């Protein structure tokens, strides 16, 4: 009798645990599948702000996507296109201006902590002046989308064919921190190629190869 009760309890537990497991089966990742990878970056750069709110085009910062294999991380100089002037969130700047007006002083330069990192990398001092003693050094971003070396992926034909950035990189305009939304597996690539061959891209017929040597050579 005892054994029977134990059996029933155990069986119920097994069923429950399995049900939970089944519900979460979507998060099972096979080895080498980096889907959902969302690493911390050296600067808390927000794509949501720049792309979502400010409606900047992806190619503004990643212009190489249409003329090179790799889209690349923008040079710090590109950041400085705007951040020569923009050193802190608008609210913080306004607060400082009000405070200065009240106190009858010239407003001080407000620099947010994240942008300070950018200026440091550029070798700029407190007053955003470069000095020979502090040469610029690269910001070591953590790469999110990284294909294995035996895959020869090229951004150019994809951008030229009109594939949107979001097709592979997901809704980056909504992300504070970039996350890999696709698994970037070979099957995922090939299924997209097949679908493109069937339906075309943006109403245009395309011929996306599914031969091995297209990507592996």
């Amino acid at each position: 009798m005892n054994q029977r009760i134990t059996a029933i309890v155990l069986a119920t537990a097994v069923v429950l645990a399995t049900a939970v497991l089944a519900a979460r089966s979507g998060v099972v990742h096979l080895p080498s599948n980096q889907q959902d990878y969302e690493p911390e970056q050296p600067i808390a750069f927000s794509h949501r702000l720049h792309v979502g709110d400010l409606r900047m085009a992806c190619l503004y910062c990643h212009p190489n996507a249409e003329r090179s294999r790799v889209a690349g991380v923008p040079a710090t100089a590109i950041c400085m296109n705007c951040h020569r002037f923009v050193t802190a969130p608008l609210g913080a700047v306004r607060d400082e201006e009000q405070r200065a007006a009240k106190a009858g002083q010239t407003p001080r330069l407000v620099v947010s902590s994240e942008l300070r990192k950018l200026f440091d990398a550029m070798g700029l001092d407190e007053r955003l002046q470069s000095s020979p003693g502090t040469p610029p050094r690269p910001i070591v971003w953590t790469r999110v989308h990284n294909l294995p070396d035996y895959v020869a992926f090229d951004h150019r034909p994809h951008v030229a064919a009109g594939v949107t950035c979001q097709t592979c990189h997901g809704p980056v305009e909504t992300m504070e921190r970039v996350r890999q939304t696709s698994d970037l597996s070979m099957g995922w690539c090939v299924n997209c190629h097949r679908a493109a061959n069937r339906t075309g891209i943006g109403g245009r017929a395309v011929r996306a190869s599914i031969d091995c040597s297209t990507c592996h050579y």
Partner: protein
Amino acid sequence: MAEAMPTRMRLPLIDGDKSLAQVTRDVCAPLDRRAGFPWWAAFLLSFSALGVGLVAIGYQMVTGVGVWGENNSVGWAFDITNFVFWIGIGHAGTLISAILFLLRQRWRTSVNRAAEAMTLFAVMCAGIFPIIHVGRPWVAYWLLPYPNFRGSLWINFRSPLAWDAFAISTYFVISATFWYVGLIPDLATIRDRLAPGLRQRIVSFFSLGWDGSGRTWHRYELVYLLLAGLGTPLVLSVHTIVSWDFATSVLPGWHATIFPPYFVAGAIFSGMAMVLTLMIISRAVLDLRDYITSRHIDVMCKLVIATSGMVGLAYITEFFTAAYSGNTYEQFAFLNRAFGPFAWAYWTMVSCNVLIPQVLWFRAVRRRVSAVLVVALLVNVGMWFERFVIIVTSLHRGFLPASWTGYAPTIVEVATLVGSFGLFFTAFLLFCRFIPVIAMAEVKGAMAADRHERSGVSA
């Protein structure tokens, strides 16, 4: 008048007029007693050889396949030679257990268990080489189709290498099944003889509660027959597919339509030679001379000479057809075999496979066990060289003279081959210690039928 003659003419299957209990006792004797010095000596020797092989494999796994002597032109050499050699050895087991069963050759009962075990061990040895040669053995399972992260990307079913993976794994599984099914009644016999203890429990586990029920025997015999019926085309298919690894190419010396039957004959030839080698040794060591009689050796010698003839005929056919073809590349490939840089390998092959076995035509030679042993060993050597010749001489002189090159095995390759022999003999020695080398139930049945026939009683 003629009624009495068969009795005089047929030799008995088993010498010594054994009773059933005596058969059990004799066959189980090596299992009951402690291993003696010869066994331990042999075991240590083969185990060290296995160790050498494991070190070599470990070294090449860490370093990469570059430690082999292969090069761009000779991309297959020692490894595939060994692979085909071992697969060939592995053919005699199923030949004896399946084909001879269908042909109702009762003498098979004395040797089939050991021959089948030999098949399994040889296939294991064979598997080592292509699995290492794929470069990354830890992903060797990619050879099998399974839903995967790449598409699903399926294996290329048009590739002879995929055929190989299927053929060899199927062969191993079915041979193991066949062997195990044949073993169940004997395991039950051992179970009932052993005193309670760990060993008895293990044997009991694997004997599946066999009790010799007539109903079970009735089904069992049918299943055994069906397995033999499946095993026969299977054994042919395996070496056929191995031959297709070469013959589907367009390389002169590889692309020949005769390859399938030629390889199968060669495989049976080398397999019979290996069975002879092992049988001659184990009948002496395990004291089974009454079961593996000179009649058995005689019959196997005849099979050796028959298959030697087939292999010889295939050699001549290839040479003749190359001359007849009028294709200069074909002609060159064969002239290069016989007179090129690897002529020594070619003539070793011809001598060991075709010329020397001809001495078995003489009954006097077949009766001298030591002479038979020497011939069998030489056939093993010759058949190894056959694969070496086919693979290396065809590759080292390809269509493009600019890429002509040579080949010499490295120490790692030789050590791996030594290791495969170590594995084979280690496994076989363990088998001799723990499993009856002779199928007791089958021998008992065959003895009964033999006695029945020899007594001249008509059913």
